[in-house]
Every structure is written in C-alpha cells, then in structure tokens.
C-alpha cells in the first residue's frame, strides 16, 4: 500500500472575530469561531464536517477557499504536484489557487445572480480564469449541464434562475463549481434547502461526480444522516473545536465523545418502532466569546470531572486506528 500525500492539510487553524472593536479602540473580546482545528483529507476522499449552528463549520469552509483569512494556522494543499501554502497567497496567486478550489453554497436562491442567464453563471469561472474561447466555453458549459442532469442543455442555457426549481438551481451551482475541473470543493450544506425527493438525487449526483471527476469534498452539514451518505470520514465540531474524527461508519456506530453521543441520540430516526436511549446534556450551545481554556463542552458534559476543569481543552488523540477523540474521560 502506498501512502499518498493528503490533498488538504490543515494545522492549528484559528479564526477570531472581534466583537467590540471601535475606530480607535482595539477589540477586547473575540468570538473564537474556529480555534485550533487540524485535519487532513486524502485525494479523492471526502470529509464531512458536522456540528450545530455556531460550531464554526462554515467558517472553516470559508477559510479553506480563502473567502476568509485565518488569524493563525496553516492550510497546505497539494495542487499540480506542488505544495501551496493557502494562507500566505496574495493577488494573482489567489486567483490561480481558485482554479483548483471551489465552493458550493447552501441557498441556491441566494447564490445565483437573478439577472444572469444560466450560461453566464456557469461560464463565469471560465472567463475569470481566461480558459478557452467563446465556442470552447459554450461546449464546456453544455457538457457540465448535461453532467448535472439539466438536459438538454440548450433548453436551460439561456434561462434565468427564477425559471428553475430549487433542485435545478442547486444543480446549476454544482455545475458552476465544477466547470473548471477543481481538485477540491467545499460544499456548505448544499442539500439542506431541498425537498427529500430532490435532495436524494442531488446527493447522488455529487457522489457520482466525485468518482467521475476525482473531486475531493469537504462536506459541511448539520445532518448526521446526510453526512453518513456523503463522506468517508467525519469530523464533529463543537464551539470551534473538532471533538471527534474518524471513519464515518466507525464514528456513527461507536461514538466516543459525550457530545457526539448526545448528538446521535437526538437525531430523529425514520422508524416509529425505533427505541433509543436519550442522553441528557445540560443547557444549550453558547457563543464562544473569550472562552476559558478548559474543555469547551465542560458546562454541558454529563461526564465532566475535575480533570476537565483543571486542564486545557483536551487534545485530539488517536484512540484506535485513526479514530480521534478530544476528551479526558472517553
């Protein structure tokens, strides 16, 4: 077995948002949106980032595509057989980087410009990157529309977003992200706005394209059931920290962190006969504003003990064959 270098390597990524900054007054409190996150994604594999609202999963995604600049930490991507330090890119290099990295957003009603035709939208990355002439672009857009199931492409190309349904719009967004053949795509809840029957087909489409075009995904979702279908590996985030990470099926079947366990026990199961053991955790998700150094989950954790209070947030440790858990008590 050969060990392939990871396509994406993230180390100690942090993003703090200042809260009470004034014109001349420096900020004294910060939201620790992403606070020391490390992971790697192998080429062709997909990692799902799951967590509740406010856990920092979208911020992580935006940092990876350079829509946000990190406070601290490293992002290294292996693109065209060269290591690219994403955090230090400037100017034209950012544009060159976006040739390989794209993002799909949650809301297909907001992410498409209502005044541009589907052709304009999907061809935009080709214009920006200066790829091909008009004929090439038309051909490429038609090819992508066919690939995402908007067939025949000629009937969709010169329509506007308002003429399409939610599922069709999300297919356009996927086509736009894939038109320049990126190596890495961050998909931020791409199916959460879609209806069940449409959602399954968009999920299937994304899986098929991943195999067909060798795309590596970071799949951001709040829905563990969707994550199960869309990822090889799973990372659970809580208040800016990854608390558990491992092979998707392993984490879902043998969750070790008390937060993952609580989250899983709360997921509704589509089976009226299903009996589960509810795990009680206290309170609700707070905002990570100047959090104390101890474990982020301490206040709500049913297992919290003195060791958790006295020490810093526990490090993410390999408990068994690539199953990482950040907990003193697990």
């Amino acid at each position: 077995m050969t060990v392939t270098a990871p396509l994406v390597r993230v180390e100690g990524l942090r993003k703090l948002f200042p809260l009470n900054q004034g014109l001349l007054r420096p900020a004294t409190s910060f939201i620790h949106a992403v606070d020391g996150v490390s992971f790697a994604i192998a080429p062709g594999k997909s990692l799902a980032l799951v967590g509740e609202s406010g856990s920092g999963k979208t911020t992580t995604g935006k940092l990876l595509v350079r829509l946000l600049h990190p406070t601290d930490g490293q992002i290294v991507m292996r693109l065209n057989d060269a290591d690219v330090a994403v955090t230090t890119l400037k100017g034209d290099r950012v544009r060159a980087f976006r040739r390989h990295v794209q993002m799909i957003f949650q809301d297909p009603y907001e992410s498409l410009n209502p005044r541009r035709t589907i052709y304009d939208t999907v061809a935009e990355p080709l214009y920006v990157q200066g790829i091909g002439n008009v004929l090439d672009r038309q051909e490429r857009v038609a090819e992508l529309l066919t690939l995402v199931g908007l067939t025949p492409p000629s009937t969709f190309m010169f329509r506007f977003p308002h003429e399409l349904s939610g599922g069709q719009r999300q297919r356009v967004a996927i086509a736009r992200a894939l038109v320049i053949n990126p190596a890495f795509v961050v998909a931020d809840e791409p199916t959460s706005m879609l209806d069940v029957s449409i959602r399954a087909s968009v999920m299937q489409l994304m899986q098929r394209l991943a195999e067909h075009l060798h795309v590596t995904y970071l799949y951001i979702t709040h829905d563990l059931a969707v994550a199960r279908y869309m990822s090889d590996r799973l990372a659970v985030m809580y208040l800016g920290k990854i608390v558990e990470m491992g092979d998707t099926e392993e984490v879902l079947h043998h969750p070790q962190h008390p937060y993952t366990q609580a989250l899983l026990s709360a997921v509704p199961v589509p089976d009226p006969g299903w009996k589960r053991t509810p795990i009680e955790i206290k309170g609700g998700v707070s905002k990570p504003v100047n959090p104390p150094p101890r474990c982020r989950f301490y206040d709500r954790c049913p297992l919290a003990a003195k060791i958790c209070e006295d020490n810093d947030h526990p490090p993410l440790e390999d408990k068994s064959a690539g199953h990482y858990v950040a907990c003193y008590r697990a």
Partner: protein
Amino acid sequence: MAETILQVENLTMHYITRAGAVSAVDDVSFTLAEGESLGLVGESGCGKTSVANSLLKLLADNARITGGRILFKGVDFVPLNEAQMRPYRWRNIAMVFQAAMNSLNPVYRVGDQIIEALETHLSPYSFDQARQRVAELFTMVGLDPRLMDQYPHEYSGGMRQRAVIAMALACNPDIIIADEPTTALDVIVQDTLLRQLQTLQARIGMSMIYISHDIAVIAEVSDRIGVMYAGKLVELASAEDIFHQPLHPYTIALMSAFPSVTGPRRALQTLPGEPPDLLHPPDGCRFHPRCPFASNQCREQTPLFQDRGGGHAVACWHPQETRI
C-alpha cells in the same frame, strides 16, 4: 376507540391568482380522534400548511374553500364567518407556527402576551390569577417562570418556541396544530422539545396535528400519518404501516429517499422529476408523471381515496405491496 373530535370531509381549497386558480388542497378527508396525534408529511408546496390553515380558516385573502366540510364536535366550520370562528380559535384549536420569532411581538414581554391571550379567550381573570397561570404554563413547557418578564429577543430559538407552545396551551385547547415547530432548531433542542410535546400531549390528553417535511420527526411524534402530494392526501395509515408497509408509490419513494443514521447504509432511491404546477395539475392521478407504475387508467382517472383494510387508506390504482 376514542371519540372523533375533528372530521374533515372532501376539503378542497384554491388560491385565486392572476394566472388562475391554484388547486392547493383537493378532496382531502381524514379524522382525528381524541388524544390522537396525526402527522401530516409532504414536500414543500404539497398543501400541508394550507390544510392546517383551512382547519382554523386562517386563510390568506385570495384563498377560497370551495368544497367539503370541517366538522369539529359536529359543528361545520366551512360556512362560519370570522366572528363565528373566533370563539373556536385558541380556545378549542390552537396553532404553533414554524417561525417562533414571528409569532411573538418583539415589544411586549413574553408573559404579557400570554396573559393577553388568556384575557381575550377566557372569562375574566384577575391579574394575579393570570400571572399564576402563565407561571404554570412556563413550568409545563420547561421554561423558568422568571423568564416571563423578559422580551422575546432575550430568548434563544428553543426558548421562543417553548414560549409559543406555552401560549398555544394557555386555554387548554382540545387540538393543537403544530406546523413545523422544530424545523429551525438544532437537533438536540429539537429532540428535547419533541419529547416534551409528547409528554404534554399525553398528560393533557389533547389531540395534535403535527406537520413536517421531515419523516423522521413525524415518525417520532405520530400515531397515524397522512402523506400529502400536490394537494392530495395520497395515503393515511398507522405510523407502523406507513413506514413498514407503504402502499402508495410516492410514500415508498419518500421513505427510500430518506437517509438514516441507523440501520444498514442502503443506497438512496431517487424520484425523477419535480412536483407538478398546481395551476394546471395533471389529469388523473397527480403523481402519474413521476410514477414508475403509471398506466393509462392513472393518466385518465383520479384514483379514489379508499380504505384497504385496517384503517390503511390509499389513493392509487396500483398500490404496491412493499415491506421496508
């Protein structure tokens, strides 16, 4: 067998638009027994919220109930005017909406808003009695009674939804209609709220109609489930039967398209096409353009909503025998 408290017969409702009449609810019939919890599930635009709003006649100006009857304890709501409907709202049938923030007035204290509901709908309450009742309601839904003097913006999303549920329970209604009350909430909050709702329902003995697009949530709260598609109720049966022995091809497709965190990881089935435009619904069965079993009969004749035994009703010419 518990007594029927609400009986809906052939309810038909249209929205009048410039482009024509949108057939949002078509020939929907079901009953609700005392203490029963009925789930209505379907995708966006299938008419589940329109059914809910019709029951209390909380309808938009361009909506018209064009047929059928809504019998609450023998009284037909359909011919009643606003003034005649008023006593039934809140007192007998209360509603919990999806957007909790929009159900609360931001400039009044939460407690005062519930007191207002009490004063409007029940015989005179003294101020102290009313506050005591609010404290009772807050405790019931798991909110600290001290919170009643705070404003909605000081509440979290889950707390607001609890306050809205407290408000709905204020007058001890016979039926509570919950329209996607947990959709905007995180799973852990949703889970506690769902369990609390079930406990309350059992304790107070009220009936509930729970509306959601999420079949997993519906599975958790419902005794019986109705599946809607394009304005039609296509299948109605016990929760067990809907999930394990669905008859309608749409129900089967819906069940097989839904991912689950438990059980084997089976491939998700997809359903081709999109729901129809209800300005011009297809002839015959409204599901036929997407149905793998469609025949000429389906294209020409509307299937009747018929009981196939054991209270399992389905509107389909070719019901399937499936076990999931």
